[in-house]
C-alpha cells in the first residue's frame, strides 16, 4: 500500500472541484464524482455563469434604451432566442470543458455518476448503470443545494419553473410572476423583463433582498419600479393552479386585491435546500441539523473525523466563492496543514441593474449586535465617473468600528458594485482602518474612488462631498 491519501469528493461544483484540484495539487490521489459530464455544478451549469451571461445581455438592452437620453437612439432590439440560448450554452460548455481539461491535467479520476456512503470510508459509486464499491481515506461532501419548494408548489414544471428551468430560456413569456424578492428572483426577473416579459415580483416581507441594508436596496427598488410591471411586497401566494391558458395565482396580504391572476409562467425563487439526503449519511456519524445542513467544525470536518463537508450543504451563505474557500480549507486540512475556515468578510453580490454588493458587517447586523459603529455614505452623484456613466444614483458605504476606525463592512449599490466589493473584503481581512483606505491612491476617474472618498468622508475630509464634521 502506498502512503498516498485517497480522497473522494462528491459533487463537482465550485466547492467540490476546487477541493479536488487542491487535494490533487497537494499530492493526494483524488476521485471526483458528479452526475454531469464535466465539473462545474449548479454554478456553471444552472446558476452563476449562465445567469451572468444573460444579465450581460439584459444590461446591454437596458443601456441601449437609456442611450436616447444621451442623444443616441437605437431601434427596439430583436431577440433571436435560439441564438441567445446557444451563446449562453456555449459559455457554459467552454468553461465546464475547461474544468474537464484541468481535471485531466491534474490526473484526478473524474467519475460521471453518483455516490452514496456504505460506511465512513466506503462509497457505492453508480456510474453508467453499474454500481461499485470504493475505499477512501477521506471523503469531502460537496453535494450543494437545490431550489426550495413551497407547500402549494411542490413540483416544478415547464410553467412553474425553478431557477434551472428559467435559465433554460425556453421562451419569453408575456407575463411572468417571480415568487421571492431575493437575489435569484430579482436577477431572473431582470433578465426576462429586459427580454420583454411583463414581470411581477411577489415578496412576503416588507422589502426586496431581506437581510441587506435598506439604503442599498432603495437604489435598486427605485430602478426596478420602471423595469418590472409590479413589485408586491408584504404579499403571499396562497394558491397556484396550472391551467391550459397559464398559471392561476391567488394572493393574500397587502397587494392581494390589485394583483393580476393569470401568468404565463411562474418562477419560484424562495431559497435553496441543502442536498443532504439520499446519500447514505445515516451509515456514518455525520450529523445533519434541523435545517438539513451537515454539521462541520472550523476545519469543515463532520462528526465523522475522516469526512468533510463544504459549500451549500454546510449552511448559509450558499455562495460559490464561500464553497470554493471551504473546499480549499478541507483539502489543506486533509493534507495535514493547519488551515481553518474563518472568514471575516464573505462578499454577497446581486447582479441586478444596478448591482448591489456588500461584505463583512452590515448595518442591520451591527444594530442587532449592539455594536458601536460609524457609517460613512458617499453618494455617487459626487463621483465624476458615475456621472460619465449616467449612474449617479449609486451609493458607497463603509461600516467602521467606532473605537478603532477599522473597516468592518462595506456596501455598494450601483454599476459594477460586484467588481468594487473585493476592495472591501481585502480591507476587512487585512484589518485596514478607514484612514488606510483614504490614504491609498485610487485611480481617477473610476468608481473605486468612491471607496476612498467614503473613507475620507468619515473624517469630514472628502474632496467631492462637503459635509463638515460636527463640532
Amino acid at each position, binding site marked *: 500500500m502506498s502512503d498516498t491519501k485517497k480522497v473522494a469528493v462528491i459533487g463537482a461544483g465550485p466547492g467540490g472541484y476546487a477541493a479536488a484540484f487542491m487535494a490533487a495539487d497537494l499530492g493526494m490521489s483524488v476521485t471526483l464524482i458528479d452526475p454531469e459530464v464535466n465539473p462545474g455544478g449548479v454554478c456553471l451549469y444552472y446558476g452563476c455563469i449562465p445567469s451572468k451571461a444573460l444579465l450581460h445581455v439584459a444590461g446591454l438592452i437596458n443601456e441601449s434604451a437609456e442611450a436616447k437620453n444621451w442623444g443616441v437612439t437605437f431601434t427596439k432590439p430583436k431577440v433571436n432566442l435560439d441564438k441567445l440560448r446557444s451563446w449562453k450554452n456555449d459559455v457554459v460548455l467552454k468553461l465546464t470543458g475547461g474544468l474537464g481539461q484541468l481535471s485531466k491535467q491534474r490526473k484526478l479520476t473524474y467519475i460521471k455518476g453518483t455516490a452514496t456512503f456504505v460506511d465512513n470510508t466506503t462509497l457505492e459509486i453508480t456510474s453508467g448503470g453499474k454500481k461499485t464499491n470504493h475505499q477512501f481515506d477521506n471523503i469531502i461532501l460537496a453535494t450543494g443545494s437545490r431550489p426550495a419548494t413551497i407547500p402549494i408548489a411542490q413540483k416544478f414544471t415547464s410553467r412553474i419553473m425553478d431557477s434551472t428551468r428559467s435559465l433554460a430560456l425556453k421562451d419569453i413569456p408575456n407575463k411572468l410572476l417571480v415568487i421571492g424578492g431575493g437575489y435569484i428572483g430579482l436577477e431572473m426577473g431582470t433578465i426576462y423583463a429586459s427580454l420583454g416579459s411583463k414581470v411581477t415580483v411577489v415578496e412576503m416581507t416588507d422589502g426586496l433582498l431581506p437581510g441587506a441594508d435598506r439604503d442599498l436596496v432603495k437604489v435598486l427598488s427605485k430602478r426596478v419600479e420602471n423595469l418590472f410591471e409590479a413589485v408586491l411586497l408584504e404579499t403571499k401566494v396562497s394558491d397556484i393552479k396550472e391551467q391550459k391558458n397559464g398559471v392561476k395565482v391567488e394572493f393574500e396580504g397587502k397587494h392581494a386585491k390589485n394583483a393580476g391572476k393569470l401568468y404565463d409562467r411562474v418562477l419560484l425563487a424562495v431559497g435553496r435546500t441543502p442536498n443532504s439526503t439520499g446519500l447514505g449519511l445515516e451509515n456514518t456519524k455525520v450529523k445533519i441539523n434541523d435545517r438539513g445542513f451537515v454539521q462541520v467544525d472550523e476545519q469543515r*470536518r463532520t462528526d465523522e*473525523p475522516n469526512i468533510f463537508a463544504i459549500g451549500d450543504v454546510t449552511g448559509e451563505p450558499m455562495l460559490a466563492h464561500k464553497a470554493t474557500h471551504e473546499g480549499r480549507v478541507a483539502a489543506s486540512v486533509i493534507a495535514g496543514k*493547519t488551515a481553518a475556515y*474563518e472568514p*471575516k468578510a464573505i462578499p454577497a453580490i446581486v447582479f441586478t441593474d444596478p448591482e448591489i454588493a456588500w461584505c463583512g458587517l452590515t448595518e442591520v447586523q451591527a444594530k442587532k449586535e449592539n455594536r458601536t459603529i460609524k457609517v460613512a455614505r458617499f453618494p455617487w452623484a459626487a463621483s465624476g465617473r458615475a456621472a460619465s456613466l449616467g449612474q449617479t444614483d449609486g451609493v458607497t458605504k463603509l461600516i467602521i*468600528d467606532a473605537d478603532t476606525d*477599522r473597516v*468592518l463592512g462595506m456596501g455598494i449599490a450601483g454599476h459594477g458594485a460586484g467588481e468594487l466589493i473585493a476592495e472591501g473584503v481585502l480591507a476587512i*481581512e487585512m484589518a485596514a*482602518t478607514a484612514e488606510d483606505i483614504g490614504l491609498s491612491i485610487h485611480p481617477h476617474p473610476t468608481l473605486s474612488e468612491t471607496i476612498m472618498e467614503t473613507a475620507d468622508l468619515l473624517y469630514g475630509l472628502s474632496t467631492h462631498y462637503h459635509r463638515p464634521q460636527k463640532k
Partner: protein
Amino acid sequence: MIKDIKIPDIGEKVESGQVVDILVKVGDAVQLDQGILEMETDKAVVEIPAEDSGVITEILVKEGQVVKIGEVVARIDTEGKQQAAAPAEEAKPKTEDIPPPRVETPPVKEEARKPEPVMEQPVQKSAPIPKPAPKDSAPPKQPIDIPASPSVRHLARELGVDITKVTGSGPGGRITSDDVKHFVHHVVEDETVVPQASMTPSNMPDFGQWGAIERVPLSQVRKLISQSTANSWATIPHVTQFDEADISHVNAFIEKHKNTVAKAGGKLTVTAVLLKVMASALKKFPNFNSSIDVQNGELILKKYVHIGIAVDTDRGLLVPVIRDADKKGIVRLAMDLKDIADRTRERKIKPDELDGGTFTISNQGGIGGTNFTPIVLWPQVAILGVSRTADRLVDEGGDIVKRQFLPLSLSYDHRVVDGADAARFLRWVAEALESPLVMQLDE
C-alpha cells in the same frame, strides 16, 4: 436553631475557591467537623467542615461555583432531626444528581513498603464534569473582531498561538506577524505561560482521525502540576546524580523501633529516617538549601530546613512540607510525616502547608523501580528521588552476606550546584545512612 455554614479562612493568601464536590444534601444529619463540601483553591482541595452538628436545611452553592472566604454556602438546623424525605429538597438544585468529578480511591497507606498497585486511576467515563462558572462573561470574539490579516492568522495557527491573546501594535490594534512572533518569544520567556502555550489545542494533531478519543478536563491540581513541572523544566538546567546506600542497618533500626514510634502515633519508615539525614545534609551543604535569584545575581541561602514530601494522591502529585525538619528527632519526623501525608490524601491539607519547602524528597520505593530522574521543584535547587531497596550479596571480608541497597537519585540545578558538589552531597547522604555517626562528625 438555624446557623450559617461559611467558608472559613483557610490560609492567608486564599480568597476564593471553586466548589468541586458537595458532600451532603438537604436533610442530611451531619456531625461536628463532618465535611460539607470540597473546595479547590489555587493550591489544594480543601474540605469545608460543619462547625455544628445538626441537619442541613439548605445548600446555597452548586458544584463548579466559585465561592469566597466568609461566603455562606449552606445552612444547618442545630436542633433538627433527619427527615425521611426532605420537602425542601425539591425546590433546591439537585446537586446529588450530578456525579462528583473526583475518582474515589481507597486511602493509600502512607509509605507503603510493599508494592501496592498505585497505578494511574482510571477516569470515570460517564461523569460529566460540572463546568466552572465562566470567569469572563464577554462573548467569544468573532473573526471580524480580530484585527489580523489572513496570513497573520495562519502564522498564529501554525505557531499554536491563540490570536485572541495577541495584542496588535498596528493602527486600530492591527496584529502583525511580528506581533505574533513577539508573543511567542514573550511566552517562552514568561515561564508561567509556557505550559498554557504548549497546551493550546491548535498545535495538537487531531487524534480523532486515528480512532476514538475522549476529552477529560484537567483538574486544578493537574493544571498546577503541569504548569509547575513545565516551569521547572524550562527554567532549570537539570542534572541527575545517582548513588546507592547500604541501608541494612537502617532497616534493622526501623524493625527495632517501629513499635515505639507507632505508639507515639507515627510510622517509622525509610522516608522518616531520610528526612533526618537530608535535614543534616542540607545544614552541611547549604547551597542545596538555597534558591537562585538570577535577576539580582544572588544566591538566597535559607536558614531554615523545610522538606517537601511528594505524595501520590488520587488527584495527582502534591507536595506538603514538613517544617524545621532539622530541629526535629526521628520520632517527631515520623509523626509529622504520617499526619501530613494522611491529610494530603484525605484532602484536608491546608494550602499553606504546601508552601515554603526548601528541598523535596520523592520516594517511589513503595511502588518499585531502580532509579528515576525527578524534576526539581522550582524555586528549590535539588530533589532526592528514592527507588526500591534491592537485596544484594556482598563479600564482607570473605563472608558472603545479604545487604539491602537503597537507590538514590539527586536532580539538581546546575546553575547553583556543580557535579562534584552533587557527588559529594549524595555520597555524604549514603554514608550517613550507612553509619549515622557521620552526621555527628561536625557537630
